């Protein structure tokens, strides 16, 4: 798998590159500004771009804008956006360009190296990955009231994992239950929330995210 990294702080850029290489992922290019990123994407055609939200010249949201731009030019281009603080608004904007092959993570998550590399592979494969903090704020912020109240505590846990983009198997492992139990929970959740059931993991994630984001 080939990756392009866009991060203006040299220390972090090198750190990311080192982690990816240690897991046999090729770093095709490592750049520090949006213009160089656009060029690198053109030339290298990577499987995924890992982009920092904040880059020169204004250090506000250049990375986010560049990621969305890249996905508009090449629909479905997998992009994983990293940030030193989580802003649910950015997650939303990112997913407006389609939720397949999109990830939004806090840089702190990179410290859990195994999970980070797993997230990179998932996004590159067309999956969706959302930082748990973002999901928590989505779940708690909207006063879902009755709908959420109908879910049991366990079901809410499972819902959070689905929104983060995890597969059935991963959820089963995390909760230490059988995959069949997870299936049952998911059926129950989707029925209580009036969501269409789908065997495809990714479409499921999209359904949940749409539900959580709906105004």
């Amino acid at each position, binding site marked *: 798998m080939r990756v392009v990294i866009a991060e203006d*702080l040299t*220390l*972090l850029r090198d*750190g*990311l590159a*080192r*982690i990816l290489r*240690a897991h046999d992922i090729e770093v095709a290019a490592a750049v520090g500004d949006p213009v160089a990123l656009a060029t690198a994407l053109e030339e290298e055609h990577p499987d995924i771009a890992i982009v920092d939200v*904040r880059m020169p010249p204004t*250090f506000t949201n250049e990375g986010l804008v560049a990621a969305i731009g890249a996905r508009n030019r090449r629909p479905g281009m997998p992009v994983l956006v990293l940030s*030193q603080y989580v802003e649910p608004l950015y997650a939303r904007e990112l997913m407006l360009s389609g939720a397949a092959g999109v990830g939004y993570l806090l*840089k*702190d998550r*990179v*410290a*859990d*190296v*195994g999970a*980070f590399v797993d997230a990179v592979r998932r996004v590159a494969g067309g999956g969706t990955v959302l930082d748990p903090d973002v999901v928590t704020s989505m779940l708690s912020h909207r006063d879902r009231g009755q709908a959420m109240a109908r879910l049991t505590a366990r079901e809410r846990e499972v819902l959070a994992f689905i929104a983060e983009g995890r597969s059935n198997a991963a959820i089963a492992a995390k909760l230490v239950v059988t995959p069949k139990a997870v299936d049952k929970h998911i059926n129950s959740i989707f029925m209580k929330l009036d969501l269409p059931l789908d065997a495809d993991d990714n479409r499921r994630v999209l359904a949940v995210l749409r539900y959580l984001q709906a105004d």
Partner: protein
Amino acid sequence: MTDPGRGARWDATWRMVLRQEANVSAAVGLLVLIIWVLSGGGFWPRWVWFGLAVPLALQAGVRRGLRAPWGQRLLTVHGAVSVVLAFTALAIWVLAGASRAFWPVWPALGLGIAFALHGWIRHGLSAGRERALLDRVDVLTRTRSGAVDVQAAELRRIERDLHDGAQSRMVSVAMNLGLAEELLDKDPQLVAELVAESRSSMLTALDELRTVMRGIQPPVLADRGLAGAVRALALHLAVPVTVAGEIPGQAPPPVESAVYFAVSECLANVVKHSGAQRADVDLGYRDGVLWVVVSDDGDGGASVTAGTGLRGVALRLEVFDGTIALTSPAGGPTVVRMEVPCELSSPRT
């Protein structure tokens, strides 16, 4: 302003005096009337009544005048007294037999002119004061928005320094340690490198935090006061700086902070841009004004225009009605003089 209690007592006293006088005048007037009826002479009591009436009228006029709003009282009282005097002259003319020459016109004219003059002067004075007040409001509006700008820029700078500095270093350390955890058994050599790098990163992060904290509130300023803090600042610079002068007391902390950062900015400019061999800082306090002069023997060419740090210094000082004056001809030398009016409290113990 006298306290309201005293004003109320004055009022009560005046009222009582007026009442008493009215009572006495009425009593005397009645008495005189009785004597006149009994003695059957010419209508002489009118002079007595006139004599009693004038002070009453004067008092009533003055009291009416005093009720005007503050600032207009003197003028209104003057007007009231003028009217009473004019009518007094008229009354005398009538009582004296209404002779052909209407002489009251002269006193009336004189009183009128005096009153008009008084009014004209007052108007001139109050217009001047109003203009001064409007100017002051302009200055306050401008310096307030300047202060808000300076503060907003400072906060942005601090946020960016923390984000790019200490926070990013800690993220990097987390990454390194995460990788080290994974590779503990597989590649001890790399793990050793990662751990060493993490330690050095943390120390740098601490340094960066300290720098940010110094930029917010230098500890030495609270400890040693302005003069001491400037001396401490001068010790660290690449260019030799001599600090002279003393401040006999403690300026208000926000003023101290603003002046300290102003001097710091000037010295930073000296080191970065001037190419000077030496610099001098003189400070002192005279006639209610704290002053500081920073001079160097460098190339000159400094200015207080937008985009330079000195602009921010000017804005900060303006908030305290302070000023900055810069002489910096091309070729040098450069002299920056800053003044801030303030009160000093007793020196630190």
